[in-house]
Every structure is written in structure tokens, then in C-alpha cells.
């Protein structure tokens, strides 16, 4: 790793990044941009976001700390942190290739072979190779360990049969990180799982788009019918699948920082809710004059601030002595539930106009709040439902017994 930079070096870098993002962060493109990589619905959105990611990468503000030989910038991680901070400051669009740079990339950097690093990293960063994730199956949404998609070794190839679902960008991806069953003979269901970096463009792999609660598209079901992929796609050894998948889930659950930089989810506009309440009328007065509304709003502000503080505190060892993993493991639960509640609440502000939905010209903020609320379920369900998050905290942080 590159040596630790001086404060002066960092300041200079920040000034450069600031200038670049101020100049280059796209303004309103005239159509609605997705708030997360899971809501890319139209070609227009997809192409716009690919172009933006590539532009950021080429300017050096994505993958800045990854090694030069694989396509990165070779800088100390502090530089990338600064770049990401500035990116946020200018509220730029999200990085599209989340599964690539957020999951597969860190994984390959962690435990991948030299070939894998050479083959995959650069294409992720410049958004040429979009990645998707194939963990969930129709019959095993929460119970990932029970995955049934079969991968049978046949010479230099694996033959895949089964189905994966809730695959964001699945119809646009070149690669998938795939959890598949190579054996049923292990001591438990987990032992028979293997992990693949699978191509998506192979005969026998088909995708079907799924319309979401919001009315948008964004994920697919993938069908594997005697699909053949090279045996080199296997990551690690047969049977390592569960351990490897858990590693990637840790990235998603926020328990580890990702290394490539950028962000894949737009922050909720908390002050926007306040603004909304200020602008809404009730009985001829601003809604924010209503003490009942204000009281609930205070509660939300406290909640948001608590999560901010939690995020700062979780990295401060002396302040998390008793249960060191607690704050990290509760982050997903607390954040996604808060967003669900806050966005639901925001609809009530709109009075009669709460009846409009996205794309009605009279909809408040073009339906942003309604869409955010409906979309909030993608986060309280996806990546381990809130119910499962509570189990995880109960068992791994509080030491409560696992239910039978």
C-alpha cells in the first residue's frame, strides 16, 4: 500500500477533487435518476449512469486506492475517502456498478487470484463490465444457505440448472457472483455451496424483468438451463461458497468499508422532509407550525442524528467496548427502518396531493416521497430482512440463543 500522505498532500488533492466535481457533477438530466443501483429502470438511466461512473473513474476518483496494475490509481486509501466525500458533497449520481466495485471487487482484491484481478477489476471500475449478484432463489429468499441452483462439474466446465431472483441489473450485467450447490453430501446445507464468478452471456442463461412495487423495473429473475461455464469461474474451492458469500454480505451490511470508493445509494434528503413540511399547508398555515407534526419531526431528526453518531462512534474503539460489533451490525436495520418510517410519514404532509404518484405533473417533488417509501422496502427486505437482521443482532451481539 502507498505510504501515508501528508496533510498538505491531502488538502491539495481535496482542492483538485473539489474543483473537478464542482465542474463535472451532472445537473438535472431532465429525467428521474435512480436513488440506488437497484432502480435502474430505463436504458436512458443506465447509459447516463455508465457514462458518469466511467468519467469519475477516468478522472481518478474511483478505485484511486486500488493497485495500478489492475486499473486502480495506486494511491493511499485516504485519497479515495476524500474523493468520495467530495462526490457526496456535490450530490452526484450514484456509482452504477455496485455489485462490481462494492462486492465482487473487494472480494477479488481480498481473496482472488492474480488472473482474476487482472481479468475483472478494470472493467468494473470503468463500468464496461456490469456485475450482478445471484444469491436469492424463488424458494429461498431469506434462507440463502439453502440455495438449490445446481452446478455440476463436467470436465473443464460446470453445468448450471436452476433459478436466481431479485437480481439487480441482471439483464444488463456481464458477470454474476453466483452461489450454487455443488454437492448435497456435506455435513450441513452450507457445506455443499460453491461460489462462481459467472458470465451472464452464455447459452442457457435467460433473464426476465420483474416489475416492482414502485411500478419501475430494476431487477430480474435469471433462469439457468444446462448453462455451461468454464470451471475457472469457480472462486476458491468447491464447498467454500458460504464463507465467501458471507464475506460479501458483510460489505453490504456495512460491517466493512468498501475499498473502491463511491456510493451506490443516495442519502435520504432529511432536510428535504423539513422543507416539505414548511411548504405544506394545513388549514391555511404551514404544516411546520403544527406542534404535533413538529414533535414527530423532532423524533425523526433525533433518529437520523443518532445514526450519524453511531456511524462515527463505531470506529471509536473506547466508545464501543462492551459490544464492539453492535453498532456495525445494527446499522442496516436501524437505517432502513428509519427511512421506511420517515418516507411514510412524509406522504401525510402532502394533504390531498398525497394522492398523486410519480410522473403526475402535480405530484410533490415529482413523487419522490412516494417512490422513496415504496422503494424503502427493497432495503428492509433485500440483503436480509429486518426480521433476520434482528436475529443476527440478537444472536451475534447479545448472545441470545438461535431459534429452532
Amino acid at each position, binding site marked *: 500500500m502507498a505510504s501515508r500522505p501528508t496533510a498538505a498532500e491531502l488538502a491539495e488533492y481535496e482542492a483538485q477533487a473539489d474543483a473537478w466535481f464542482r465542474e463535472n457533477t451532472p445537473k438535472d438530466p431532465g429525467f428521474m435518476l435512480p436513488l440506488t443501483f437497484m432502480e435502474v429502470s430505463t436504458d436512458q438511466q443506465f447509459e447516463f449512469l455508465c457514462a458518469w461512473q466511467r468519467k469519475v473513474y477516468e478522472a481518478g476518483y474511483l478505485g484511486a486506492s486500488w493497485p495500478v496494475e489492475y486499473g486502480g490509481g495506486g494511491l493511499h486509501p485516504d485519497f479515495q475517502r476524500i474523493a468520495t466525500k467530495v462526490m457526496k458533497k456535490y450530490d452526484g449520481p450514484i456509482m452504477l456498478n455496485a455489485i462490481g466495485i462494492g462486492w465482487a471487487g473487494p472480494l477479488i482484491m481480498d481473496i482472488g487470484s492474480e488472473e482474476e484481478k487482472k481479468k475483472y477489476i478494470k472493467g468494473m471500475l470503468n463500468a464496461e463490465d456490469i456485475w450482478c449478484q445471484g444469491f436469492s432463489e424463488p424458494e429461498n429468499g431469506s434462507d440463502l444457505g439453502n440455495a438449490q441452483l445446481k452446478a455440476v462439474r463436467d470436465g473443464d466446465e460446470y453445468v448450471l440448472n436452476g433459478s436466481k431472483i431479485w437480481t439487480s441489473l441482471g439483464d444488463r450485467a456481464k458477470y454474476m457472483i453466483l452461489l450454487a450447490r455443488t454437492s448435497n453430501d456435506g455435513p450441513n446445507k452450507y457445506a455443499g455451496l460453491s461460489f462462481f464468478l459467472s458470465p451472464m452471456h452464455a447459452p442457457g442463461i435467460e433473464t426476465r424483468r420483474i416489475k416492482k412495487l414502485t411500478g419501475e423495473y430494476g431487477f430480474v429473475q435469471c433462469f439457468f438451463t444446462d448453462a455451461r461455464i468454464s470451471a475457472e469461474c469457480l472462486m476458491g474451492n468447491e464447498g467454500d461458497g458460504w464463507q465467501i458469500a458471507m464475506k460479501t454480505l458483510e460489505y453490504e451490511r456495512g460491517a466493512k468499508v468498501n475499498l473502491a470508493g463511491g456510493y451506490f445509494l443516495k442519502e435520504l434528503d432529511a432536510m428535504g422532509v423539513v422543507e416539505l413540511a414548511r411548504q405544506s399547508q394545513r388549514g391555511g398555515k404551514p404544516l411546520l407550525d403544527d406542534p404535533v407534526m413538529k414533535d414527530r419531526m423532532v423524533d425523526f431528526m433525533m433518529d437520523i442524528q443518532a445514526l450519524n453518531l453511531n456511524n462515527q462512534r463505531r470506529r471509536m474503539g473506547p466508545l464501543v467496548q462492551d459490544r464492539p460489533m453492535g453498532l456495525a451490525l445494527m446499522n442496516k436495520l436501524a437505517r432502513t427502518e428509519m427511512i421506511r418510517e420517515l418516507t411514510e410519514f412524509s406522504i401525510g404532509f402532502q394533504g390531498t396531493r398525497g394522492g398523486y404518484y410519480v410522473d403526475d405533473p402535480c405530484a410533490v417533488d415529482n413523487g419522490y416521497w412516494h417512490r422513496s417509501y415504496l422503494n424503502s422496502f427493497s432495503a428492509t427486505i433485500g440483503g436480509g430482512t*429486518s426480521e433476520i437482521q434482528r436475529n443476527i443482532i440478537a444472536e451475534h451481539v447479545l448472545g441470545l440463543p438461535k431459534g429452532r
Partner: protein
Amino acid sequence: MAFSEGNLADHLGGLSYSEEQIELMDVATSFCRDKSPIDKVRKLIADERGYDPAVWQEIVDLGWLGIAVPEAQGGVGLSMAEVAPIAEQMGRRLLATPFATCTIAAQALLAAGDEAQCGEWLPRIVAGEVATLALTEPHGDWNLDHVEATAKASGDGYVLSGTKQFVTYAKDAALVIASVTVEGAVRLVLIERSAIPDGALRREIIIDETKRSYELTLDGITVPASALLDAGRSGTALGQIELASALLQAAEMCGGTQSAIDYTIEYLKTRKQFGKLIGEYQALKHPITNAYVGYEKARSHMLSAAHNFGQQGVGEIAVRMAKASADKAYSFAADRAVQFHGGFGFTHDCDAGLYRRSAIWHASQYGDAAWHRAKLADLLF
């Protein structure tokens, strides 16, 4: 040993029901179930009109449009209490038609129409011509007396201006009853569909895809002086409209809540994860039980609102409690319905989303739970 909180009950009225109410409930239960299976609901989402004219005609033939209309005007001569169970079953099956808006329009005429106006329109509504209301404006305020649209005297009649939103089923309506101010005072005015140019109606994109709603631009529409409802009774009429709407909404919402819960229970009983039926997990079992408790409470309030409707004081309290508790129950049940269906819950194919959207729609029209609680605070304390 019973816990009755008699001291409060004395203030807030009790519960009873009429034979007719139960008969209508029974008929409506099977009618709505048969006529509105969920695949038909979904097919109608894609339909421009949004409802099946044949079913509408059957509803008319059943006489349901005249339930709360006096016999003299061609109605059945019962009350809103008997309309509520029908609305409940419609809400339960997501059976969308102009039924509610026609019923409310008739109530508006009864509240502020003169003999000629009632004599002309009530029989036509009972016979199935669509009437609707145009009360809501772009300011978004739930106060129905917050009216910015105007009617200005001009020759023999009045020229209207302003914009009305959420005029449900306006495209099919023979009659639109709009609120306007005439010389500063809020009045209701009858607008015949023929007076509305096609360009004045814009179909709105609303959260509940099973319903149809339009924006109506009043600018330049002219009505005769005889189209104004009684000046003295317009305020009362708006109050009546608000309460009648809230009652029917509460009923529809109770029906929807019931379905959201039933639909989720069905899933919890059949879906397995980690080798168990997910309904065995208390993390799902207990919240859905809480949803059910909330539903039964809301339904009791709704039945009380129907029973006490029109009673001075008690009626308004009961209706607002009904709408507030229906909103709470429906929102919670539908929100949990989405969540508990997991990944499938997040798809457009899952019916949980239909209920969730319906709950949002109802909350947005004629006041949500917080709004009605605020009104109740003034009434109770």
C-alpha cells in the same frame, strides 16, 4: 368483570345495526367477491375507464345508488348506515366504480339542493348516471372551505375559474358538483358534463391504480344561476360531504385491511423458509396479529360511525374516529403485508402493493389519521 369504561361510552355512543344493513352486507359480500376477483382488478388497472360497465349496471339494478336517497326521489329511503357495509365489501375486493362518489353527490344534493335540483338529479343518479365532486384544489389543504376557485356573475349565469383536483370518474360523469366562492362565500355549483370541454379534464396519475381521477380546469366554464345550490346550506353541505366521504372511506379501508391481512396470512401459512412455515415465526405471527387487532378495532369504529351517522355531535366524533383508526389499521396492515411477503412483496405482482397504495390514496382524500385526530381533539377536549 367486563371492562366497559362506561364513563367514556356514555359520551361517545354505542353500537347497533339494522336488519337491512345485515341483508345488504350479505348480498354485497358475495356480489363483490364474485364480480371482482383479483385478476379482474388487475385487468381493469390497464383499462382506461377503470371499471366494468356491466358490473356498474348490476350495481345500479340492485338499487344500491338509491339506498340513502328518499323514496320520493326514487331511492330506497334508508340511510348511510346501510351504504357502509357495501362500501366495505367493495374495498375488500378492490371493486372500483363511481359508487362512492355518486352516493356522496346525492348526499350533497340532499343537503343543499332545492326541489328542482334534487328532483332532476337524484333520480338520474339512482338510475346510474354518474355524478361526482370537485372540491379539492392545488393547495392540497384538507379544509373543504379553503376554496380559491370562483364563480363570477355574468349575464344570466356565472363564469367559473380555478382548478379542481381529484375529481374522481369525472370523464364518465353527467354531473360535477364543484365548490367555488361567489363574492367571497363558499357555494356549491352543479356543472353538467356537457358544459365541460374535453380539454378541461386531465387524467391524473394517482397512487391507487385501481381508481380514476381527473384534474378539472374550470376557467371559462359557464353555468346558469339555477346551477348554484342553496347559499344558506352550503357550509352544512360541505360538512356533510366530508363526513359521508370519511364514513365510506373508513368502510372501504376496513374491507381493504381485512384483505391485506387475509392475503398475508395465506402466505404465512404456505411459504417456508429455513424448513419452517414462516407463519411459525413470532416475528411475523405477532405483528400480523397486532394488525388483526387493529383491524377489528377499526371495524368497530366504522360500524359505530355508520350507526351513529347523522347524530348531532356523537356522529361526527364517531366518523372521525372511524376514519382515523381505519387509516392507522390499513396503513399498518398493508405495510406489513408488503414486508412479510419478502422479495415477492416488493414486486408489482404481489397484491400487498395494491392494498398499500389504496391505503395511501384513502389517507390522502378527506384527511388522514393525524388530521382527524386533530379535529377530534377540538371535539373531545
